[in-house]
């Protein structure tokens, strides 16, 4: 890669700037974007330690130390939110990866090209729609008066269920909708990994008399292991961050369901938008960011020890 580089020794920073001013200029719009929308709000996290009011502003509002956090911990809210966020993500990660791998393996067994194309198109489709539409679909299926599920129950002579007020049903519903929306999309990565497996491994296995099941068990699955470990580790790194659009459009402001459905994102959104509560929401957000940051760093550290090539940094 050295080619035309004729410089000797390290260049001064000014020389580097002059040499690469065009490349630097090309990055300027993006740099400004991230500074304005991601870095400038950072000092605002100070609100978490204040009794914020509009008039005094972020740094003029009275300092209250860790009081906002104390309130969150004592009220049990922080625990509920953390538990819900983590448990949902764990379910998504475990069930999601199992389903994705299963679908990818089965797609690989399929031989008809048109069938493969068509079924993939159907399976990716839910990923393309807005989460608002996911809410519409849930309404179509689950609402009390006209929902398809209750229509079916009534037809078979049963009593309709008030699904939108049964908190116990929602973990199952949310997990199902999540799998519906993301399995096809997630299977792509595994399918690509299967396509990359050395074909001679399969031929050797066949020559040795391995059945189709044995080829999956002893060739495909072990070959997917590195991809699986990396994807799961990074997913675990993001376990503090929930899929806001999904939860909000399925549950929204329906307080009857919060105990089992409220995650950090939905709670913060509600505090900001309908309660104008900036102190508690900032405290929750800061807690989420710090905890999440530690988790990503840990995940990356582990991945790095497994295989340096896969690490994020």
């Amino acid at each position, binding site marked *: 890669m050295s080619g*035309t*580089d004729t410089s000797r020794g390290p260049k001064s920073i000014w020389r580097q700037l002059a040499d690469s001013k065009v*490349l630097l200029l*090309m*990055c300027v719009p*993006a740099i400004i*974007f*991230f500074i304005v929308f991601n870095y*400038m*709000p*950072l000092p*605002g*996290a100070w*609100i978490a330690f204040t009794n914020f009011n509009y008039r005094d502003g*972020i740094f003029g509002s009275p300092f209250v130390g860790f009081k906002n956090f104390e309130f969150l911990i004592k009220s049990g809210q922080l625990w509920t939110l953390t538990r819900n966020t983590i448990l949902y993500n764990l379910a998504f990660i475990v069930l999601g990866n199992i389903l994705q791998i*299963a679908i990818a*393996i*089965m797609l690989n067994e399929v031989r008809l090209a048109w069938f*493969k*194309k*068509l*079924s993939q*198109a*159907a399976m990716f*489709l839910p990923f*393309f729609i*807005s*989460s*608002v*539409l996911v809410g*519409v*679909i849930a*309404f179509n299926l689950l609402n009390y008066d*006209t929902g398809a599920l*209750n229509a079916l129950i*009534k037809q078979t002579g049963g009593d309709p269920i008030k699904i939108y007020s049964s908190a116990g049903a929602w973990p199952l519903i949310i997990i199902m909708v999540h799998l519906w929306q993301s399995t096809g999309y997630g299977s*792509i990565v595994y399918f*690509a*990994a299967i*396509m*990359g497996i050395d074909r001679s491994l*399969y*031929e050797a296995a*066949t020559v040795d008399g391995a*059945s*189709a099941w044995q080829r999956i068990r002893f060739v495909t699955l072990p070959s997917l292991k590195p*991809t699986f470990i990396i994807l799961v580790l990074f997913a675990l790194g993001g376990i503090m961050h929930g899929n*806001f659009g999904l939860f909000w459009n399925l549950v929204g402001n329906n307080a009857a369901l919060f105990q089992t459905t409220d995650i950090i994102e939905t709670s913060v*959104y509600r505090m*900001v*938008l309908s309660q104008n509560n900036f102190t508690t*929401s*900032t405290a929750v*957000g800061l807690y989420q960011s*710090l905890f999440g*940051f530690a988790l990503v760093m840990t995940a990356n550290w582990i991945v790095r020890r497994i295989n340096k*090539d*896969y690490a*994020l*940094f």
Partner: protein
Amino acid sequence: MHSSDLARPIATEGVGFGPAKPRAIKLDGSDLLIRSISYITITLFALFCLLPFVMMLSASLSSEAAIMKSGFGILPKDFSLAAYEWIFKAPKQIIGSYVVTIVMTVFGTAIGLFIISMTGYALHRKDFPFRNHISFLIYFTTLFSAGLAPTFLWVARDLGLRGNYLAVFLQLLMTPWLIILMKNFMRTVPYEIIESGKVDGAGDFRIFAQLCLPMMKPALATIGLFLALGYWNEWYLSSLYLGSTVEFKPLQYHLYNIINTANALRNSVAGSNVSVTALPSNTLKMASAIVATGPILLLYPFVQKYFVSGITIGAVKG
């Protein structure tokens, strides 16, 4: 350069759409069983994925009375176009929303694509001494953020963008992930091309615009589609920064309001002089959803392959 297991399959374009590799494997009983299970399971799962769309379409084509009586189902009940007639009787709202969304999508995608490809190119250049610093500056935003409340206060109050379409438009222009994706795509341009441009005395921007960009069409298509989808499906930033301050809401946020508030449903089709109960609200919600999603569903078959390459290339780190 990259010989890892993960990177290899990912470098291949359009994974999954090439013809299956011919394999001279004799089918025995277990093969046949696994293959049948695969066909059946995939068929069922594909139907499971499609069914809600079919039900939404069927519901929008049903009569309100039939839905009130027997609920939503898989097939249209008492076929009727009444819901669509309501929408297009007073189409001002929906057309306004369409215009807002289309303008944002077109300009946002074009501008975002330009900035992302410039940045991705510069960060790909190994002779750019600041590439690591700038990459870190961009990447760090995915690791740590101020959170919703401080960001909201900053954008709405300090930048004064509350009630301004720019609050939505600007924030969707780029993401760190799309820039990394572009950088990964740049690997498909042989470095010799850049070298040859330098030898010919072309400036860095000219090398980018005249030599690299023409070779980057698949990347531009993929990233452009992710951007366009982001703009088309946007409702979240609108709910935060626009609320009810604008007359014409972006399409998905308009739909969000129709679904969640009875008044929005009424205002969207008839103005306030019609009572809510006179409206076929169930079928109208479904018809609105179809109208707001239609273009995506129609374009979907043509753009799907670009997403696949985006996901597989994006799966490796930057």
